[in-house]
């Protein structure tokens, strides 16, 4: 467990600037909350909150798709995997790192929303449940991207991830909503997007649980693929 945690913390440290840029969006929400006429402009505030919240899913795909590539291109991966670190541990560390990076953002967003939306009458427990949904969505999206990046260039991995996450969403719109649960990132994101002051939404654990289960599945799949990859070969 210790190597996984070390790799995760190292990942967060290496991604500190993108995380910092992400947090600037939260600062934006805080500024709007500070100057808004909350009772009158609360729907606008919620709209900004939802928009800012959804960005983190795109960032999780970016984090997941580029993690291995960056490490291989810089050859720093050799230093890590020359230690007593198995490849499945290495991938688990990166996934935990993506989860931590997104959790930092979601925590900051949740804290800001507690203050701003909470003051405007949005149920605070629901704010934190939505943040949990976001983190679960990010972890799954990041893991799918990481899985594809074990054998694809980051751009292609991000594209493939968009297809894997998007197809169930399209199928749910065209056929049945059940399709959305096959890869539940869309369901979790929709939880956030559909919430309103009148109908903040309920607490549905199924998509969160499914997301965690599928994260485990995609991690296992990534491990199988990555164990066959020659990591010392140049990636350019």
């Amino acid at each position, binding site marked *: 467990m210790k190597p996984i945690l*070390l790799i995760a913390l190292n990942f967060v440290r290496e991604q500190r600037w993108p995380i910092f840029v992400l947090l600037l969006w939260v600062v934006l929400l805080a500024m709007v909350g500070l100057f808004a006429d909350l009772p009158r402009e609360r729907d606008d505030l919620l709209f900004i909150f939802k928009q800012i919240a959804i960005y983190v899913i795109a960032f999780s795909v970016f984090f997941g798709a580029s993690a291995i590539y960056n490490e291989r291109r*810089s050859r720093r991966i050799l230093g890590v995997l020359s*230690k007593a670190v198995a490849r499945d541990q290495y991938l688990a560390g990166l996934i935990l790192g993506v989860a931590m990076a997104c959790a930092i953002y979601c925590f900051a967003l949740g804290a800001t929303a507690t203050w701003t939306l909470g003051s405007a009458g949005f149920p605070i427990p629901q704010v934190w449940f939505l943040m949990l949904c976001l983190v679960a969505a990010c972890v799954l999206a990041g893991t799918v991207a990481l899985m594809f990046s074990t054998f694809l260039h980051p751009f292609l991995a991000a594209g493939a991830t968009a297809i894997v996450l998007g197809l169930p969403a399209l199928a749910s719109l065209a056929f049945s909503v059940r399709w959305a649960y096959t890869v539940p990132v869309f369901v979790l994101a929709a939880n956030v997007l559909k919430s309103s002051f009148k109908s903040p939404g309920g607490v549905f654990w199924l998509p969160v649980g499914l997301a965690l289960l599928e994260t485990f599945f995609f991690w296992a799949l990534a491990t199988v693929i990555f164990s066959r990859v020659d990591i010392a070969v140049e990636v350019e």
Partner: protein
Amino acid sequence: MAAALEFDQVTKEYRSLSSRRSIRALDGFTVQVEAEEIFGFLGPNGAGKSTAIHLAMGFMLPTNGSGRMLGKPFGHSATRRRVGFLAENVALYHRPAEKLIRFYGALNAMDGSNLAKRTRDVLQIVGLEEHAKRNIGKFSRGMLQRAGLAQALVNDPELLILDEPTSALDPLARVMVRELLLSARNNGKTIFLSSHLLSEVELVCDRVAVLHRGKLVRFGKTADLLQSSERIEIVARSIAANAFAGGVAHNGIVRFSVPASDQRLALERVWSLGGEIVSVNPVRRSLEEVFLEVTRDRQTPLAEGVQ
């Protein structure tokens, strides 16, 4: 004594999806590195040295063959706890040197006061103790290589695999590394040293393997490789230097070499000229001469490359 590192008929082919070509980087490579020796691994650029090292470390999978490191198959992650590795063109995370070494030590399941002490010790060994708090992003290339060596040593490894460890070092630091390797060997460690610095290898290595185009072309004890069985050096006194082709006189002593097959004739000639034999020894060559001998026939001339 069990081998520390074994390659058994290891072949590695790189396949390109776009061109459908495959390049054989390593071809039926078989070598055993014994415990408690310094093993030199030589070869021109592209000979397959780094490929062999990456296979041993588990960074790559062999196309054919197998190998063992400290008794376990290549790629066994727990075994790497007993191994130190320094890659060519060392790449490390940008953070203070002390924190960086602690990070790599912690990845090898070290912790607490043991890790803290060992980190200080290795930084001192590689001469970076005064730069322990400095971010390695501000290090020179030579200092980076020292930091790389420190991370390889932090777990006090039984087997040290070094890929070009002295390429960026100044002469003083090279001497430090040489002494470090000899001291490690004397303390029961095994060192697998890949280097282009033939004089360094000649000085420290017990055995040497020369790789060329993925194949092992020379392998043996360093002393045996350097000893030529083809020419004999004869030192004699009381004869004229010009009595033998290539004879050199110094303080009344004449030194010349002859093919081993002519040794008897040359000795009889010295005696017939009234001379006295001082010594008869096989000619000792430099490792550079041996290296060029086994690789030059297939080398691309520099001029050709320029054209």
